[in-house]
């Protein structure tokens, strides 16, 4: 079972800050503590969702991490050295060349543990499609074995293994090549958040599909729809990982169950129960819905700790979490290393 941890300073419940009134929670060290705990518990990735590309106009949110996510990701990557790091970035807010560089750099800093949560333009699906293709082409500027560092010949890389995108499309014109080395995992992992609406881009390009629904029925529907869309796009079910948003409310005992009973205003399936009950439900849901795993949205820091401390060991006892030794995010997710288009005989230039 794959596990992701969605990072916030106080928890995903908008009222969570009232129980942890401490400005230090907004700082890097406290955020790193959360990520390190998730890593130690065996989580596969941390998600830096960043208000999904919405910029604040005149308010500050206690649910948003107060750091630009790709840079926070880079800092975290040097201090947490196993967990994957998936950061959101909007195609409306970065030039494609700049975004391709950011994530290629993050992938080098993290030694192959980076993922990009694609937040496409609201308005125009065409631009989002073209944008992801440009970024992918830039990431393919060098083949896997391009960098030879031949000191005697004075040859840093093999020029025949560099590819210039020369992209000229309806929306974007980008020459290339990218001025960053090839990623240790081929390319950073492409993630998409899916609720309702247009999923064509995710079906065509997504690898880590984050499913968001408030009910089991809704989740089942989205998962089935995505599997159909992926296959309709000419890809295999095994090319993607389906992971659902879960809001765990972990009770210490059956007696303590339902003490609160609130429905939290968080996008994801809320699961109230003891560690055993939650493990049961996760297991059932994964099977019924054909999911590979879950992204945990802890409503509070305390609930996050209980999930890590009580639910994860229960999942481990059931053999659902292996000891993971893989180094790259792609390997952890069990996704194949992408074959460079030049090696597969496809045309590289757009």
């Amino acid at each position, binding site marked *: 079972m794959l596990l992701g941890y969605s990072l916030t300073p106080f928890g995903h419940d908008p009222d969570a*800050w009232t129980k942890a*009134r*401490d*400005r230090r929670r*907004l*700082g*890097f060290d406290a955020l*790193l503590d959360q990520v390190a705990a998730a890593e130690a518990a065996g989580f596969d990735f941390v998600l830096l969702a960043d*208000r999904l590309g919405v*910029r*604040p*106009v*005149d*308010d*500050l949110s*206690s649910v*948003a991490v*107060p*750091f*630009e996510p*790709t*840079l*926070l990701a*880079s*800092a975290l*990557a*040097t*201090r947490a050295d196993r967990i994957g790091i998936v950061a959101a970035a909007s195609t409306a*807010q*970065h*030039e494609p*060349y*700049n975004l391709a*560089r*950011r994530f*290629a*750099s*993050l992938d*080098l*800093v993290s030694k192959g543990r980076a993922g990009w949560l694609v937040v496409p333009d609201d308005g125009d699906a065409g631009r989002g499609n073209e944008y992801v293709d440009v970024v992918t082409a830039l990431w393919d500027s060098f083949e896997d074995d391009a*960098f030879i*560092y031949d*000191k005697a010949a*004075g*040859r*840093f*890389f*093999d*020029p025949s293994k*560099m590819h210039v995108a020369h992209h000229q499309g309806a*929306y*974007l*014109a*980008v*020459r*290339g*090549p990218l*001025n*960053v*080395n090839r990623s240790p995992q081929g390319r950073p992992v492409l993630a998409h958040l899916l609720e309702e609406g247009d999923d064509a881009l995710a079906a065509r390009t997504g690898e880590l599909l984050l499913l968001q629904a408030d009910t089991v029925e809704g989740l089942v529907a989205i998962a089935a729809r995505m599997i159909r869309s992926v296959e309709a796009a000419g890809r295999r079910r095994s090319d993607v990982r389906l992971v659902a948003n879960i809001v765990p409310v972990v009770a210490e005992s059956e007696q303590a169950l339902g003490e609160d009973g609130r429905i939290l205003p968080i996008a994801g399936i809320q699961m109230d129960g003891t560690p055993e009950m939650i493990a049961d439900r996760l297991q059932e849901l994964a099977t019924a819905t054909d999911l590979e795993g879950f992204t945990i949205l802890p409503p509070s820091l305390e609930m996050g700790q209980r999930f890590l401390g009580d639910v994860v060991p229960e999942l481990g006892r059931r053999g659902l979490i292996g000891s993971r030794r893989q180094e790259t995010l792609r390997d952890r997710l069990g996704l194949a290393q992408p074959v460079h288009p030049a090696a597969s005989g496809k045309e590289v230039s757009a």
Partner: protein
Amino acid sequence: MSERHMKLGAFLMAGGHHIAAWRHPDAHAPAGSDIDHFIAVARIAERGKFDMIFIEDAAAIRERNPDLASQAARSTAFEPLSLLAAIAVNTSHVGLVATASTSYTEPYGLARSFAALDQLSGGRAGWNLVTSASELEAENFASSGLRPHSQRYERAEEFADAALALWDGVEDGTYFPAGGETFADHSKLHPVHWHGKHFAVDGILESQRSPQGRPIMVQAGASDVGKDLAARTADVVFAASQTKAEAQAYYADVKLRLGKYGRGQDDLKVMPGISPIVGATEEEAKAKYRALQEFIPDAVGVALLASYLSVQDLSAYPLDGPLPEMPQTNLIQSRQQLIVDLGKREGLSIRELARHFAGARGHWQVVGTPSQVADAMEERFLDGAADGFNVMAPLFPSGLEDFVTLVVPELQRRGVFRKEYEGRTLRRNLGVASPSKG
């Protein structure tokens, strides 16, 4: 503080500033893509009490010809902000200055990124504002298009003002107001509503206010508009000057402009580049220099020289002859003039100029013992040519290690450089004025 101390920047670049550094037997060839290498080098700078480390940038591979590009270690690099964010949480005192262009980014995203770097580092971030002149960069942002020199600076002026407004959008103590029942004190938020000629920005940055008020502003512009922008907005200006007289003229010029904007003489630090090659003896230093020069392929050196001159190609001219007459360009005018002047003054051939620039890329080069290097620096520091220096080690880590072990103690002994950091923020260590509380 009665004693005036020089400011030091460590200009980092992969395996070294020398273009052939990566071919040196001691060089770790993949250094430019190795985060552990950069963290180790940053820690050497911090051990040497450097004010800052500095990362240059171009949003392109700087050479169009793949054969030439493939011979240069500079062809690929980390994106500077990603690199410095990683270094920030692995160092404690050294300032972190990243280059970023105003031509191919927008103010909200860039101001946000520097705010993040400033928070990650506890107030050690700096932004080297550049306007990007190269065609190769423009082609990676073809929808934006290359702007003529004057418009690039007009956009840069507006960009800088919008970024400053965004950094001032959140006051100290905005989060968790004392005794308050709210998460954030809305009376301390100042949303930006910027509607200018080049940008429209409506919003605030989701970030605490910088521990140093605002990130430090750095510039290297040497044209008239560039110097005015620096005098108005920058805390530090880098410059490429060969001779002491050039450096003094530049220094006086920039400082004179400060008055126009109501700023004091100490509010802007002038830090020209220096490329030091240090040896225990003069002979050892010269041997180190020769060993590096040998690794420069002529084709690479000449192509680099052509790019500094903003001309397509010099291969039609004899390698051992002088530079041809240059057409005026609207690109990097100041650098072109510097190279032409040097060639005429010292009667250098194309090959000699190419090798010379490959080593220090137009910056001032000093080859000698620790005390010779310290003498040269001290002289310019005391004679109105510099407030400090941006040190460009030919090799990393060894060149910087040499400087920190040999030259820094000499400068400290002479009382012209700090023995301990004055504080934890870059602004405090540079000793430049704090902005108002916003």
